[in-house]
């Protein structure tokens, strides 16, 4: 179980994350939502260990992650939002390098990479430099790299970005399947419909503060709103979207 306890992150003059606490349990897919600038990205960096909280603690299975960051990184898989990859390496070379960086045994990892490349339809392009890949192909490489070492916690940041419909459906099922197999999954996306379908639970941040942490079903009942999108709008969107769109259209027309 991943647990954030009173996590705070201050920058000079800015309180980016303010005493956020929540839990992501094994077997569940936890949706992680928030508008731009809500502190979502900062929290994600603190969970990955790339940034140290100003105060508060992050635990995994009851152990503070900063106690042994290297060990923590071995247990975690991460799909970043932006598909930044080394373009001069081929897809195969990149995945082999990730396996080596993680200290995975050569032969089983090679077989696993081969299987992942086949399943993601990348096998034919495995010797092509990543710089030539489409955004969807890069995303598949990122997902493969995140899952290569069979992590216990999987952090997914906009994992559907650039994927075609078919692969998107496969990934959706895969997330649920992995959760069913006992993985802790924290899933961030701006697509409310997808989050609603995949996640059993959501955490919503707004201006650095936690504004919701419950199952979607409970939130729907509690707020008497039919969809997650409506709930999110209620909790985290301050603007009158209709008025704003009208203003923009008026501005364009002069």
């Amino acid at each position: 179980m991943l647990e954030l306890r009173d996590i705070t992150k201050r920058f000079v003059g800015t309180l980016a994350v303010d005493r956020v606490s929540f839990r992501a349990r094994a077997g569940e897919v936890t949706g992680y939502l928030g508008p731009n600038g809500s502190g979502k990205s900062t929290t994600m960096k603190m969970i990955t260990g790339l940034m140290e909280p100003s105060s508060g603690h992050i635990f995994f299975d009851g152990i503070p992650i900063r106690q042994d960051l290297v060990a923590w990184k071995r247990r975690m898989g991460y799909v970043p939002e932006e598909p930044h990859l080394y373009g001069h390496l081929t897809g195969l070379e990149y995945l082999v390098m990730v396996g080596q960086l993680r200290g995975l045994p050569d032969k089983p990892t090679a077989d696993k990479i081969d299987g992942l490349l086949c399943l993601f339809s990348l096998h034919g392009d495995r010797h092509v430099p990543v710089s030539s890949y489409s955004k969807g192909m890069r995303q598949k490489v990122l997902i493969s790299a995140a899952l290569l070492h069979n992590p216990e916690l999987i952090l997914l940041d906009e994992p559907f970005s650039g994927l075609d419909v078919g692969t998107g459906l496969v990934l959706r099922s895969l997330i649920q399947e992995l959760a069913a197999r006992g993985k802790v999954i924290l899933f961030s996306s701006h697509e409310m419909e997808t989050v609603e379908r995949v996640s059993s639970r959501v955490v919503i941040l707004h201006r650095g503060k936690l504004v919701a942490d419950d199952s979607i079903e409970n939130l729907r009942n509690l707020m008497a709103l039919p969809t997650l999108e409506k709930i999110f709008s209620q909790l985290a969107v301050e603007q009158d979207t209709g008025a704003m769109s009208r203003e923009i259209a008026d501005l364009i027309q002069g």
Partner: protein
Amino acid sequence: MKETQFRVLYKQFLFRMVDLELLSADAKGDMSKLFGQFAALLIFLSIGLCLGAGVAGGGLVAEWSGVHFMIATTMLVVGLFAILSWDSTFPDRRDVMVLAPLPIRSRTVFLAKVAAVATALSLTIATLHGLAGVVWPFSLNHYHRAEPAPAITFDSAIAPVDAAGLQSVMDRDLEQALKTGPLAPGTGGGAAIGVWKHGVQRLFAYGAARPDSIFEIGSVSKTFTAVLLGQLATQGKVTLDEPLRELLPPETVVPPSGVEITLRDLATHQAGLPRMPNNLHPASALNPSAGYTTGDAYAFMKYWGVTKAPVAPFAYSHLGFGLLGDALAYRAGRSFADLVRSEITEPLGMRDTVLQLSAEQRERAIAGYAAPQRIADGIDPDAMSGAMGIRSTAGDLLRYLVANLHPETIVNAGTLQAALTTTHELRTNVMPGWRMGLAWFYDSDTGTWFHGGATAGFTSYAFFQPNNDCAAVILTNGNPDAFAVYNVLAEHVRARLSGEPAISLDAVVVPAGGGGISGFIRQFAAWWITMLLSGAFIYCCVLGLQGLVAQLLPRRYFLRASSFLQLAAFGTFVGVYFLEPKLVAPGEIAVGRSSAYLAWSPSYWFLGLFQQLNGSPALAPLARRAWIAIAIAFGATASAYTLAYFRTMRKIVEEPEIAPASGGRSWVPGFGNGFATAVGQFSVRTLLRSRQHRLLLAFYMGVGFAFAIFSRKTDHVSGDAGQVVSVGLLCSTILIMVLSVLGMRIVFSLPTDMRANWIFRFSPIPGGQGCMIARRRALYALSVVPVCLGTAAVLFSVLAWQVAMKHLVALAVLGSVVAEVCLHGRQKLPFTCSYLPGKSNFNISLLLCSLVFFTGMVNAAELERELFDNASGYAALVALLLAFAICARRSATRFAKSPEGQLQFEEAAEPAVYALDLHRDGVTETGII
């Protein structure tokens, strides 16, 4: 509207001319700083180049060499600029994709591009010549004196001239030289010519010379030494394949374990010996071998040894023939002079061919001139007699040449007939079209056997042509470097006898600077036009080449070929700059191999152009080539841009830029554990596939190789080349090793893609010690090991294996010392960590340290060479280096284990946040949320 678009695009293109990503992969916002550094560097260079203007007034050799150096340097700088702006010269995919949706005409884009290229090019040259472009024209205008130079034109061909008719033809062809040139009355200059054709013989002379004047014949003496070898071989006293060692006094040299130098090797310049020995310390440059005794030569051989290098190509050696003469004299038990007299000159009746002149001969000996109005000392070659010690007349030498041409006519001369025939057996190739027998060279194109010679005050040339049944000798009393006509006289005679167009013997006068304002304006204009045109020529060549390849290849293959072309262009520019002759006498420009080379050297074309623009008639053919070259280069560039206008834009849009798939074979070896292998293989692949890193490394390696080329050339001049370890060779390998390690360390520090390094940050990377192991293996694998392998290949081919092995061991240990020092400090994984551009203080420090390092390196190399023969001393040297390496390694490892030695991805010690751009939400350009 169009003007605004042009202005905006022009500004954008201009500031993007230099590939900033090449200089720093993360140079956000530092454009002005980098441009400032460029400009400062060029201005600094310009100040340095001003110092060279002091050569003005030092004679044509110095002035032409100086101006040529400036032209060549300009071309190199522009060439390097072209390499830096490689991808900015044509509209690229980024331009097309960004600009295509906008309402801009393609013509505007192209015009802005061309204008930006022209501006950048002009600014580069203007910055480089900002100061030098004033000081040089001023100095040349003020100090240059009028001086004659060869015209480098050809007299029209006439029917082959016979011996009887040659004098009248030469009277006409030498008309100007006799009136106002080096053969004019009062100059002291003279020439004696002997010719034999179809049984008719003529001897005649010009200027101060008479037909029976005695001249130093310089290296034509070598052919006499070869005949002596043939004589003794025919008489059974020696064999051609006899080791030299057996003809030296006992105990002179130790019998080698490998292949020995033989007499045949000496007589064909294939012994691997230097041009001159390095224990020659001449008191006078005009009489370099005076006082060099046979004992000195033996002492040199004791040091050098008689092992023949595994690969010993043709290397012209005075020492080799000096030794051969001494060795034959030792075997015969007589002096070399006695041997020449009894075996050659007496049987052939050559009474005036001697090493020491009698009183009567001294009266007939003509004075030699090292320069106009400067009489040279007489040569006194001692141990080098076999190479250059003989004096003779045109008549005697003609008799000797006829004997060579028709050995069958020799009667009552013992074994001489067979000996001469022996020297005419072709034994080796010298260069394409040139072969050689014993001492004699053979031009297979014209069927001419020939040998030239020169001493400080004399020039000689002897040849015979069996196919034309003719022979001729040309003797003059002037140094060929000082008297251009003397260098071309023999070639002129040969061409007249063969009926070919003959190189003109006329000299032209390079007018004096003038000294006035108008003269300065002309020099100034000529200077700037020449420099701008030479720079534009190089730039246009690069553009034309790129444009042509872009048209010929599909887009995706062009992109791959382009990066290799860029590297090849860099190698070509640097290689040509350092390899081409820098100090060329006017006479050298006119004849022989120099002429052939210079005819194809663009920097010399522009030297001709500078002369022409200054109103000088000299080097006109080179100037003509410059104009043709400019027309071709400009035409190619215009075509390339036109084709790009019509085709490349469409190709960019239509054709994918997907790089072709690799073969899929993983040949990169493992580096130990998984992490070290990941880092090592990533480093190898990045270096092989990243253009910017490859090119940056090439700059560092280029300096090393340039020094190697330079020192190799210097070795040949100083007589320090060959199979023994020369200091230059040792220094070259040391410098290449040091620069390779340092260059690789610097290249490692430039990230290939900062945003992609999240995978390293996110991986469970081991602590400082594990990182150090991975970095160390990557650095060794990419710098120390390849240099050791390359050096081994060179050393084992030119040196005895024991010596090669010794230097290799010392070099490897030195490499590890430098590598360990480089590994010390903050730990960064290769190609993954941030790099702050503008940290050129390292490069400046490197430059300053290198000045100290160069001095130390030469001393260290000399020490190492001395210790090769001293086992305990050598062991101590290696042990010392090893101790340094171990200390440096321990220190680096200790630091890596400390808290400060942990892996750092960011240049700044305490970043506010990690600028990973992992998520776009709330992340600004600087990474602050």
